[in-house]
């Protein structure tokens, strides 16, 4: 019972946040809703025995991505604060397609007989993850680090002020 209540609270955060992101006209609010949604997701992860992931979620999504998005919104605030409609011409089509997709997927979710296991959750999540990162998934892990480095360098080069770079 308690768990269900907690689940619903987080669901309201996640889905309400998500709804806010796609429906509000003010992008600044959208970003705040986004971080609300991310925080709810961290709660989900705690419920799902993934405490480490919850912390990562907060650090990366709330602490970095949402902040970056807010920052970008602030930097381009001249074009952000408009009263024009924020949706494009295919809005009506999207409004038809996405609910349909949702319904199909829900149908799928309900129809499939998931092989749920009743085993107790792992206790040593952290050590297992560490062993997997430096064991079986070593190469993806290293590739990921290279990817992040490349993204870092690329982002700096892209966002650098070209005029200043020339002097």
């Amino acid at each position, binding site marked *: 019972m308690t768990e269900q209540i907690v689940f619903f609270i987080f669901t309201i955060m996640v889905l309400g946040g998500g709804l806010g992101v796609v429906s509000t006209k003010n992008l*600044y609010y959208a970003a*705040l809703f986004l*971080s609300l949604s991310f925080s709810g997701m961290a709660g989900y992860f705690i419920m799902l025995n993934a*405490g*480490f992931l*919850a*912390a990562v979620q*907060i*650090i990366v999504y*709330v*602490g*970095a991505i*949402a*902040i970056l998005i*807010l*920052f970008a919104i*602030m930097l381009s605030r001249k074009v952000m604060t408009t009263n024009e409609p924020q949706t494009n011409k295919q809005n009506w089509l999207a409004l038809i397609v996405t609910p349909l997709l949702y319904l199909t997927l829900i149908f799928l979710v309900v129809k499939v007989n998931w092989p749920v296991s009743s085993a107790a959750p792992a206790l*040593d999540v*952290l*050590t*297992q993850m*560490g*062993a*997997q990162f430096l*064991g079986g998934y070593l190469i993806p892990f290293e590739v990921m680090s290279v990817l992040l480095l490349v993204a870092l360098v690329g982002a700096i080069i892209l966002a650098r002020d070209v005029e200043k770079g020339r002097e």
Partner: protein
Amino acid sequence: MEPIITWLANLLANVSWWPWPAPPSAAIIIWVVYGLFIAFGIAPLAMIVLTWLERKIIARIQDRIGPNMAGPFGWLQAVADAIKMLTKEDTTPAGADRIPFNLGPGLIAVSAVLVFAVIPLAPGIIGSDLNIGIFYVVAVGSFGVLGTLMAGWSSNNKYALLGAFRAVAQLVSYEIPMAISLITVAVVAGSMSTLTIIHNQAVANGGWYIVAMPITFLVFFLAGMAETNRSPFDLLEADSEIVAGFHVEYSGMKYAMVMIGEYVHMLALAGLSATIFLGGWRGPFVEQLYNAVPILGGLLGLVYFLAKVLLFIFVMMWFRGTLPRFRIDQLLDFGWKFLTPLSLFNLLTSAFVVKLFQPAGTAGVALPAGPLAGFGGLGLTSALLISNLLVAFIASLAVRSLARRSRGNVLKAVAGVEG
């Protein structure tokens, strides 16, 4: 904590005048509510005490007396200030976004208070022993950034916005060396749980980490100061440049919340530093006393802990009293070009040393003992100290050559102007 809850549950079950027996969960709820009460009650109290302390200390540093009229040593001055703040008119600027404007200060204060969940105050007293303890600290710190940003943007004031910009640049930059130095600690301790970290700082296990890892401590403490916006890193509220930064539009209780956030953050940083680097509640006789008479041992531990916390708080105030403020480019240079590489390099050498001294164990896979594992905790401590000093030496050489080069450039430029 278990014994306390059991005791509470027994007490509740045996209340004679209450017709229905209380369920066991009631004890937990009472305990949690009590904890919340303490956590959020201490925050304003801490702010009152610390403002008074700060004014006195800064005054002494500046050869003044400081508040001395209201009450003995002027300590009622802080209470008076608090009352004034509570009774002031709470204004909201006309163009402000109301909801984020009101949420921001709360988020700042809450993010600071949340840190205390993983700081053990005394043996046996901890909010929650998370196995990702110090990682959690970094995570909740993110909410503070968000709060600052909300406050700065929604004030609809250019100074506040500038403050928010600076906040993002500074807080996000300094999160990195701080996280890396915490990772260094986690590597050395082999765990992120604060309890394990304190356990590993027993003398038999190698002693306080500040001895083993002075560089890590320095990086952590400096980055932490920047995270708390303390002088000399108080750029986002620099009153002489951007009035008061992101909280220029706040008044009354909301201003008090921002202030509470700042001071509790300071307290949290001091508490964390004490926990991670000075062994937390560790001190002579604590454990012996705790094993004999738990309550006395706990109290003694609390005293040691508070003493260490006050030491760090004093150091922070001392910094504020003596150092001028950074310029924003210097600040970012310092973070990205000095602290971050230093902490990375330090992480590398520390990990290497730990690998040498690591005893055999299992972490998902079986780990063999390091070749020098026979030397034990003290060997690890001394080797880490040596490697830290080595890193410091190399860093000082690098800084020296860089400084010479830039001084040379300046001299050249000056000569060019004169010539």
